[in-house]
């Protein structure tokens, strides 16, 4: 498909401060203009599968990458990941988990469900900015997304 994708990053994050700081970091590298933010797991699923509040979307309009937090209200990050991987239409979308959890169980389960990358949010803000920038640059510029 040659359509210009309108969405590059789907950011699924419930903490508004973290959302703002993430956008700010991405903005520095001019990567922020195509970010959509979902503030909980249910909203993320509606967006990806183009139903509920997002029925006017098209499923084929897939994000280049999903930055997914694990601790989300309504539907957890791992459940969202599972649903994405279970559907033929969405299973190849690159998903990067960006979370504060360093729990071994979470890491194991995430990779088992097929996550592409697992990032623990740096506590230090400078490092956080650096991590977000690197993630944005890598997944949007360096990495080849799946074609269809």
């Amino acid at each position, binding site marked *: 498909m040659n359509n210009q994708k309108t969405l590059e990053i789907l950011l699924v994050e419930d903490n508004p401060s*973290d959302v703002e*700081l993430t956008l700010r970091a991405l903005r520095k590298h001019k990567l922020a203009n195509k970010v959509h933010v979902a503030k909980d797991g249910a909203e993320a699923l509606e967006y990806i599968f183009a139903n509920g509040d997002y029925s006017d979307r098209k499923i084929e309009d897939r994000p280049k990458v999903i930055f997914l937090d694990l601790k989300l209200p309504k539907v957890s990050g791992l459940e969202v990941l599972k649903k994405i991987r279970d559907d033929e239409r969405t299973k190849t979308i690159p998903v990067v988990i960006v979370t504060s959890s360093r729990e071994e169980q979470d890491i194991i389960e995430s990779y088992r469900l097929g996550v592409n990358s697992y990032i623990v949010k740096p*506590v*230090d*803000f*400078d490092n956080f*900015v650096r991590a977000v920038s690197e993630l944005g640059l890598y997944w949007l510029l360096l990495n080849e997304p799946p074609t269809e």
Partner: protein
Amino acid sequence: MSPKNILSEDALLNILDDLNASKKDIEKKNMELEATSKELRAINKKNLKLQEELEIKIAERTEELNEKVQKLDKTQKSSLYMIEDLNEIQTELRLQSEIASNLSEGIYLIRMSDGIIVYTNPKFEEMFGYALGEMVGKNVSIVNAPTDKDPEETVNEIMEILNKTGEWHGEVNNVKKDGTLFWCYANVSLFDHPKYGQVLISVHTDITDRKRADEALKAANKELEAFSYSVSHDLRAPLRAIDGFSSAVLEDYSPRLDSEGQRYLNIISDNAKKMGELIDDLLAFSRLGRKEMTKSDIDMSKLAKTVFEELKSTTPDRKLRLKVKDIPPASGDKAMINQVFSNLLSNAIKFTGLKDTAIIEVGSNGEGDQNVYYVKDNGAGFDMKYVDKLFGVFQRLHSAEEFEGTGVGLALVKRIINRHSGKVWAEGEVNKGATFYFTIPQKRGGEKT
């Protein structure tokens, strides 16, 4: 005239004949008497002889009998001694039997040739829920709970140690008659029995309670760990926001801020960072108390050098010189001792920050069964007046302006060394450097605790 009173010649001749006949009779009888007399005399003689012989025989027999009596006496005496000994042995055996019967631990004996239980004491039977004598004659497999390990493998492992050291001690999972599983601590040894051959004797202590307590402790620790982890992460998110937005204000609004405003914002940011560090240190400190130690041999000089190289790579702009002397290996938890070197060496690097070249030395003095290691630097040192405060949590002898830090590093070192049953102390002089000493047990050969 008839001569009636005159005897005729014939009559006299008859009488003479009769007399002669009688005389001959008498002589004959005399001779017979004599013969008989002779016989009697001979018999007498014989009798006397027999009597003599008899008396000799009697004397001999009497002597024999005396000897026999003496022997019997001796035998009787030694029998009496034996009876005394047997009594003692019996008392001893009774005592041992009482001990075995009344022991509050279970004991059983297994005949090694076929794995049959040949003895159980009452407590053992009680522990396993069997009637008196019910277990003897059965195979030892009735007491062993099934595990995921191959039972033969388990037996082989135990036998290896038994044959090497004569003893085996460890936890075993047992099964009672009614199928209940429970844990015991078994103390096992071998010996040769005259009747049963090689015999294994095992003393079992029911550690169900201990295991339960252990599990409860583990669960509590896990809960605490999860709690600490979640608390620390929940605390970090707002910190990130404080730090982040302060930086954002500084970046976006610096033209509109005077230097004081910028200074305030920097203070906010620094404190947020510091709080993050405090959380990390507290987490590490608390986690240390709950962590299990795994002892092994540690190449101390190699460890010190490795840690130093890592630290050096994070401070590329500093001139650092490390001298690691030939220090002996030690026995301890490698990850924890790594932490000790990390804290001491990073302190050394930190507090030599004002010197042109930092000279850091790692060495040791062997003393008894503990090795004394030290980390010495030529940095800011400290006043010995305050040496007692050095190892307290959050205790610092320098202000944050002089040297950054949260004051948990040395407290962590002290905690780790204490867990190794060692000691930690320090010597220093203001501006002349400091030396930190610690002791840990010598290398013993890889025992696991």
